[in-house]
């Protein structure tokens, strides 16, 4: 995952958006409870807040070279509105 994906911000996010996203991620993964996640969040923030590093990351994160299957990594499957019935079936199925 690249820095933008880690913080969940678009490629053209403003500095304020990056900071807000960073703080919210740190709240979610504080260093004492999730040291590894915090480390990657911190790295991502360091990359994105330095305009030159951010620009470099933007240029180099093309996704080319990885197997095509990796296209589905981190991909959120499409949600389908199936109506209330299948939900009710589960509720009644105790």
């Amino acid at each position, binding site marked *: 995952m690249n820095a933008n994906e880690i913080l969940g911000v678009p*490629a*053209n996010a403003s500095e304020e958006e990056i900071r807000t996203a960073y703080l919210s991620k740190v709240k*979610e993964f504080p260093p004492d409870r999730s040291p590894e996640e915090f480390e990657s969040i911190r790295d991502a923030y360091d990359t994105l807040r330095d*305009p*030159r590093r*951010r*620009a*470099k990351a*933007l*240029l*180099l994160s*093309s*996704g*080319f*070279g990885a*197997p*095509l*299957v990796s*296209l*589905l990594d981190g*991909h*959120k*499957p*499409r*949600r*389908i*509105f*199936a*109506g*209330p019935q*299948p*939900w*009710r*079936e*589960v*509720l*009644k*199925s*105790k």
Partner: protein
Amino acid sequence: MSVRQSSKPNVPVPPVSAGFESSVRQMIADGKYKTALERAKDFHKAQRNAASEALLLDAYAARIQSLLDQSLMPEARSLVDLVKDRFPAAKQRLDSIMVAASARDGNLAGLLQPLNDPELSPERRADIDLVIQTQVTDLVALAACAEVPPGHSLRQAAAALDRAFKVVTSGPVTDEQIALPEVSRRSPLAAWKWLIRAIACFHRNEGDACREALSAIQPESVPGRLVPAMRAMLGSKTAAMLKPAELALISRTTEDVSELRGALAALDRALADEDDESKVYKAARAAVRLCQRSAPELLGQLRQLIFVRGGVDGLNPERLMAALESAPPKDPGFFRMYARALESTGDEQDAAEACEVWETFREAAVREGWFRAQGVETATLYLHMADVLDRVPPDLLREVQRSSGWKGGPERSEDRYFLFPEKLYARACVIDPHPEAFAQWMRWAAGQSKSKADEVAREWHRIRPDDLEPILHLMAQAQKRNAFPSALAFLVKAERIDAVHPVVRAARLRLPAASAIHHLQKKKPHLAAEKLAQMEALPQSRQGDRPAFLAALRHVIAKATGDDTAAAQSLLDAEGLLGGIAAGCLIFGISDLAKRTEWAILPVVAKLSPQERKSIPKALARVKVIASDFGIKQIGLPVTYFEEAATHFAKVADTLDIQEIRSLGELGTGTRQPKLAWEAAGEGLKRGGPSEARFMLLRAQAIPPGFGPRYLAIAAAALELGRSHRDMDVVNEATEIVRNPYGDSISLTAEQARGVVKKELASPAFPSPNKPGPDYGDLMPKTACQCAKCRAKRGEIPDVFDEEEDEFDDDVFGDDEFDEVEMERVFKQNVPKGIPPELARMLYESMREAFLSGVSPDEIMEEILNEGGKKKKGRRK
């Protein structure tokens, strides 16, 4: 249904024990209701006390509940009637079970009717709430239940929840639609509110918010039954096996991409298989179609990836496009991907093409608001493009520049700027004048020519006057041109920025020394004396052997001005500080630099006493150290002194420290006295330690021509030792020696390098045809000769250009690099006398630009001046 009273008449009466009771309760907990009931009956028959009755009623209750859970209502009702008949006291408990069961089936009258009783106890109310919370699944029935008035909060809440539930599972909703103010936090239906929120978040792909809502749902509540399935839908692994209804829900609400995953993996395999191209088109078509169905949001990106991969792999574009069924979206992401793909092929032509694609990316990115046209991203991109172009060989780059429509004029090349590293660097540094950008530009320029590096340094200094690096560069270049006033002006600037920088500190002493010698060369001893006075005023000139250098310089200046008294005094001073031989050598060296050796009297070696002759090695080493301290790289002395130093070296080696030995070695290589260098290198090797890499390199440099394998083996050993001692100077110098651009270069392991050192220590004699030294043939790379004859002998097809190549003599064509010195020389030779300097400069620039397009300096001069220039050998047309 009939309930068997006693199916086991011969069961022995169980003993009275707490253990038996707990075993029955364990059976209930394990779901073995029927057996538990039989045991409880036998136990009660035997005991007939309150405890046994309580145990039996619990077993009955559990059994009834299990029948209800299996939807066996008539059987459960019969059993309830039976138990009520036998144990009237259990009536209320059993009725509650039946009411709850009815409520689960949507028959809520019995459950809700007590709510109309104003005297309803809080405990009873809590029981009813608990049943609503854990058993009522039919919100419609609850909202419509006539047992409570229409305005009752429970009916209102159920109706609102039912509406929201239908809406949230059928399409996108707003927060207002699922706000549900009718449902309070204390309501027995509160968990439904969280469920609706969780479903909304799920459909919005807000995983974290969805998980948060799910965690607020009580597990025993009715909505709690959906929590495991929803967690699975969010991608969490569930401990329990999912029920069929849960699996059905997942498949109906979440797109399954497993088939697409398989198709993509198949396409990856097809792309990796170079044998069958048609497989790729087939697999691509299948992947695209599946993606269209199960992940249409990824379709554009997939088409881009396949198109780029196929393009780079050289697939048929028409067939590929047919397989994709539509062209990939041409957005900035596509161009970026394409450019990166071209960069990664390793093909130099592709690298040049990548820059063209990068330019298209830049335009698209600016157009689509990815970044600003004059932003730091653009500057970074320009630097990256320049870096990519740096990988393209100069010949090919010029060819690409020419074929792109550029004819040599600087203005006309502006629209194709992305093929010109210099223009890219210049643009990058204008947009984002950052030291790293300038440093990158400088590194590139230094690889092109000295004047280019100077230009960049000047530009850097103009834009960032407080950066030290360009000032140091300009200072060094000014010194090389003997432009000492300029060099000193740069030194003053450098001192203002960082006075303690080692280069700056050294320059404070070296610049006046070089300037003084230059003045002596120009026969201006009074100016040299001024510089000497400046040096003498510096506190650092009083350190170490520096006063001896100043005394020697004073002596030479006095000689130049004809002041014999001062000359005699300064000679005495120098001799007093260094001793006779060293002082004499130093004075001779300075006089030699001033091109006036007649000012120095150095006795002939043969006339020296044996003691004095033995002192020569140490004296030379000391002189070399002093000269280096003042920035003098080479010092000239009579050859006999070097020979004498080489002769006596072994006898006095014990008295020399490692620095002196190294100085002598460098003096030997610098003055082309290989024997002296050889002796010093041998002694340094014997001493071992971290300097052995340097001494191995010195030994390689001292080897005379004709001992190629030994030369290469020692240099390769120096390279390996340099690596292990992290001596990067040695590594760089040794790499230059062992590098073979036409074949395999020699490379040694640490063990092999150690072996070379051992062999060299055992062979101290200077190499000669009679004593060539160790044979390193086994270490040489095994490469077959590539000449046409040898290749034909081996049965290989000779290259059609072999014969032509043989005719291409290096002397005729020379190397391809831009030779600034040669250029300047031709220019100065031919430029008309009296031409204004501005015009001369313009002429020179035109000449340089044209040269880069492949025209020889002479031809350029001929064209510019329209007069016959002499044809020079060694220039490339």
